[in-house]
């Protein structure tokens, strides 16, 4: 299929791997262990696998939807639902991406404030980050993809190995007895796990920017597989490192378990880790903001630079309004509910709708 966009804007299909991976692995990997064990206890590793499988199916659906339309989701909405209902869906999509980026942005600031600089004001750190984000996003999609590449490589080399230091204190009895939770508990823990995979839907927006998009599906699945493996390994390490009661008390288990690593000269590795995490967070937020701005451009035809600027100003304001941890938590919870319906209901609905329409018009 021929692409709609100029060749120089496109990225080759191989990069979908990095785009998917960095979009999934963001802020959640620091704290997901506690959320998923709330229901399923230490059987929660099963739900990581289950939700990963469901996301694989959804990615396949997204590829079918976009393959038929050969365009992004904004176009699909307009084409299949008409100007008004489609427009409504499009506005939802804009907010969906932007709020997700906002949550990641605000939680990262919170982590920096709690772990590194308790006295640093939110406006100072958010201003610095937003300037950086503006720089990345205004560079266009290819620049963001480049960031994604480094955002995958660097943390994988530096951050991932640090988790293994905690195996010194591993207690494998924690994992036993296996399958001690009901199916219902595991399913509701999979639901909590879903929020950690949210972000892969940006595929809806960047699909037209892929060279040979139909050949890129394999890379999307591999990216997904890698990220769920990363989740699984880190979760298992956490489970053997923390007792279940202790994990319930820990807000950021991944960071706390890195605290056990000890090096000469570096007393606390997690300080470096939080700083390095920016390299993961930056492309993660950038892709989502880019997707939001791209959607705005296609809906109301505003130049992307202008909408980006307005969005970032709004980010700055909202990030400062959200002061307490409980507020951030509430936003997070509300969003994860919406994301649940969007991902598990809306995407299959869209998939069926388009397939039926496609068959009829044929």
């Amino acid at each position, binding site marked *: 299929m021929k692409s709609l966009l100029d060749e120089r804007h496109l990225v080759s299909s191989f990069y979908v791997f990095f785009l998917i991976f960095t979009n999934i692995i963001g802020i959640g990997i620091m704290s997901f262990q506690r959320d998923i064990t709330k229901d399923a206890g230490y059987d929660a590793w099963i739900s990581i696998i289950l939700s990963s499988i469901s996301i694989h199916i959804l990615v396949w659906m997204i590829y079918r939807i976009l393959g038929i339309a050969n365009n992004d989701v904004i176009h699909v909405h307009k084409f299949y639902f008409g100007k008004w209902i489609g427009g409504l869906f499009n506005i939802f999509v804009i907010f969906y991406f932007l709020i997700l980026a906002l949550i990641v942005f605000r939680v990262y600031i919170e982590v920096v404030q709690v772990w590194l600089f308790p006295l640093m*004001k939110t406006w100072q750190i958010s201003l610095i980050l937003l*300037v950086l984000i503006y720089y990345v996003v205004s560079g266009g999609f290819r620049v963001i993809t480049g960031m994604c590449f480094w955002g995958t490589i660097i943390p994988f080399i530096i951050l991932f190995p640090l988790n293994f230091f905690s195996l010194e204190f591993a207690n494998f009895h924690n994992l036993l*007895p296996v399958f001690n939770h009901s199916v219902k508990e595991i399913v509701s823990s999979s639901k909590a796990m879903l929020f950690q995979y949210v972000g892969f839907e940006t595929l809806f927006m960047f699909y037209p920017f892929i060279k040979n998009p139909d050949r890129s599906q394999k890379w999307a699945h591999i990216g997904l597989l890698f990220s769920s493996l990363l989740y699984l390994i880190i979760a298992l390490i956490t489970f053997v490192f923390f007792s*279940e*009661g202790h994990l319930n*008390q820990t807000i950021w288990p991944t960071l706390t378990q890195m605290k*056990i690593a000890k090096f000469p000269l570096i007393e606390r590795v997690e300080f470096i880790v939080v700083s390095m995490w920016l390299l993961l967070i930056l492309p993660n937020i950038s892709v989502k903001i880019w997707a939001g701005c791209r959607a705005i451009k296609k809906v109301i035809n505003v130049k992307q630079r202008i909408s980006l600027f307005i969005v970032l100003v709004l980010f700055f304001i909202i990030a400062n309004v959200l002061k307490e941890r409980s507020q951030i938590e509430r936003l997070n919870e509300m969003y994860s509910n919406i994301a649940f319906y969007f991902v598990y209901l809306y995407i299959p609905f869209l998939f069926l709708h388009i397939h039926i329409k496609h068959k009829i018009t044929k």
Partner: protein
Amino acid sequence: MKLCFLSIFSLPFFLSGCGIHERIIDDVQIIEALGYDREEGKVKGIAIYPTFAEQGNVKLKIYKTVSDSYEDILPRMNAKSAYPIETGKLDFVLFGKEYATQGIEDVITNFARNPNTGSRMQLGIAENTAEDILQSSKHVNLSFHLSEKINQNIESGNLPKMNLHMFLNNSYQEGRDQILPYLILEEGQIKIDGLALLKNGKYINHINLRKSFILKTLIDGSHNGQYKTKITQNKKEGFILLKNLNAKTTYTVEKSEGIPRIFIDLTIHAEIEKASSWFDLKKDKDIVKLKRILNEHFKEEVQSLISLAQGYNVDPIGLGEKVRATSRNWDYQRFMDIYPELKTTVHTNVYILNTGIEE
């Protein structure tokens, strides 16, 4: 436009100066050990801090303060200090016995709240008061020697693996009670004299270093530790010092109605490090005999340690955890009710790998 960009991009550099609370090592007061005592209904805090007069020359000094509860011990010390007190390097917290009998869990869980607290921080219980121990450790003039003492004994002595993280793991989890090193003063020097057994953060009793070797092999297995035992043969008495090279314990839980039975299989690979001279180690027959004696001995020791723990109603070995790992309907309360009557069957295999380079 270019100017505008330049000013925006220079912003981070200007901004990075403000708000960051710099903590340069010369401008903070690092404390390296902290002690809590109960004194006439009040809490007494003792902190050791190093001062560096010249390169390579450390002098340890002490802050003391009294408060009606533990929470504001550090702020009170801060009021005495020329520099703000930092707990980032704090790696030993000691509790007096009297304080520990009333519970230390609050102090420790609140330490864990602080991101600066290291997970490898060591904790301990002092025989009398924490003040005695810390006061005498002042003269050592060696930074971190208290926590190093414990770490060294974990790595090559008779102490099982312990640190702040493991303490928290055990205190939040059902199925294993906490243990902490028990420190005494011997001829003005600080000595680790075994392990203190705790329940819900409250000191119950302590066991000596020989028992703590047994406990160590029961908890995590070990590749180190030394163990002295008395041998009687042909009406002669003698001692043997075993050097443990590799010990491993496996547990099998047999579920029966009511009270579960736990089979403990202990394997020790040891080297004879010292033995009384009348002992003949050349003959195979004698070695076999010795092995039998040692097997009996360890079996007895393990049994007596378990029944001792059962008598105190504490579970330092983590038998509860072993039962939990094999049962579907885990009820901690019920387990603690039947814990004193829990049956254990011990089987030991002692292998004497060698006797050094001479027989």
